[in-house]
C-alpha cells in the first residue's frame, strides 16, 4: 500500500498549482506556480519510492525549465493584460470536460491494481535504457543537439535582422 497522507498532500498541491498555471494572468506568477507544481510532483515521486524520478524532476524541471521560462518572461514584452473572450473560456471549459471525461472513462474501463512493495534502485531503472530502450535513449542525443542548434539558429536570424547588425555585416569585407 502507498502512504495516504503524503500522496494526498502532494496531489492536492499539484492540482491547485496546475489550476493556477492555467488561471493566473501574469507570466511570472504562472512560472512560480509551475515551480510549485514541479516540486509537489517530485514529493509525490518520493512518496511512490521513485527517488531517481524525484531527483530528475527537481533538477530538470524545477532547476532548468522553470528558470528558462523566467528568462524568456524577462526578455519578452509584457504585452499588457491578457484579454480572454467568453468564447475562448467556453471552449477551454469544453475541452477540459471532454478530456477529463474521456480519460476517466479509459481509466475506469482498465481498472487499477494495487501497488506492490518493490521500489527500484538507480541501477534497476538505468538497466532498460541500455537494453530494450537503447534506441530511444541514443536518439535523445541528436534530439537535444537539434534543439540547441534550432534555438541558436532562430535567435541568430532574429539578431541579424536588426538594422545595426545588417549594416555592420555589409561593412565587413
Amino acid at each position, binding site marked *: *500500500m*502507498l*502512504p495516504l497522507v503524503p500522496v*494526498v498532500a502532494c*496531489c492536492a498541491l*499539484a492540482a491547485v498549482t*496546475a*489550476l493556477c*498555471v*492555467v488561471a493566473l494572468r501574469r*507570466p511570472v506568477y504562472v512560472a512560480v506556480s509551475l515551480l510549485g*507544481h514541479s516540486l509537489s*510532483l517530485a514529493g509525490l*515521486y518520493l512518496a*511512490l*519510492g*521513485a527517488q531517481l*524520478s524525484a531527483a530528475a*524532476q527537481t533538477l*530538470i*524541471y524545477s532547476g*532548468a*525549465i522553470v528558470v528558462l*521560462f523566467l528568462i524568456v518572461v524577462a*526578455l*519578452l*514584452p*509584457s*504585452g499588457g493584460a*491578457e484579454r*480572454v473572450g467568453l468564447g*475562448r*473560456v467556453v*471552449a*477551454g*471549459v469544453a*475541452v*477540459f*470536460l471532454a*478530456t477529463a471525461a474521456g480519460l476517466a472513462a479509459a481509466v475506469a474501463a482498465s481498472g*487499477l*491494481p*494495487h*501497488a*506492490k512493495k*518493490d521500489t*527500484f534502485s538507480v541501477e534497476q*531503472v*538505468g*538497466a532498460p*535504457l541500455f537494453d530494450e*530502450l537503447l534506441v530511444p*535513449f541514443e536518439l535523445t542525443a541528436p*534530439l*537535444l543537439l537539434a*534543439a540547441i542548434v*534550432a*534555438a541558436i539558429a*532562430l535567435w541568430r536570424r*532574429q539578431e541579424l535582422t536588426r538594422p545595426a547588425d545588417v549594416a555592420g555585416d555589409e561593412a565587413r569585407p
Partner: protein
Amino acid sequence: MNLSSETIIVATAVFIFSCGAAGVVLRKNPIGLLMSVELMINAAIMVMVLGSRLHAQPTGQSVALLVLVLGAAEAVVGLALALAVFRRREHVDVDEAREIQG
C-alpha cells in the same frame, strides 16, 4: 468506491492533463501556452511513474526519464520560437502570428 492512493494519483493526473489541454485552448500568451503543454507532459510522467510502481517494472521510470528530456527539448525550441516571433511586437498574442516565412 474504494478511494485508495492509486485512485487519487490517477484522478489527479487526469485533472492536471485536462487543465493543460484547457490551457492550450484558453491562453493567448505563448509562455502560458507552453506551460500548459508542460502540465500535460508532467501528467503523463506521473502516470508512468505510478505504473512502474503498480506493475513492479522499472521500465516505466526509465521511459519517464526519456519523456522528461523530450519536455526539455520542446521547451527550448518553443521558447526560442516565441522569442523570435514576439520580441519585436507590442502585443504578445499567439493569434496574431498568422504567417510563417522560411
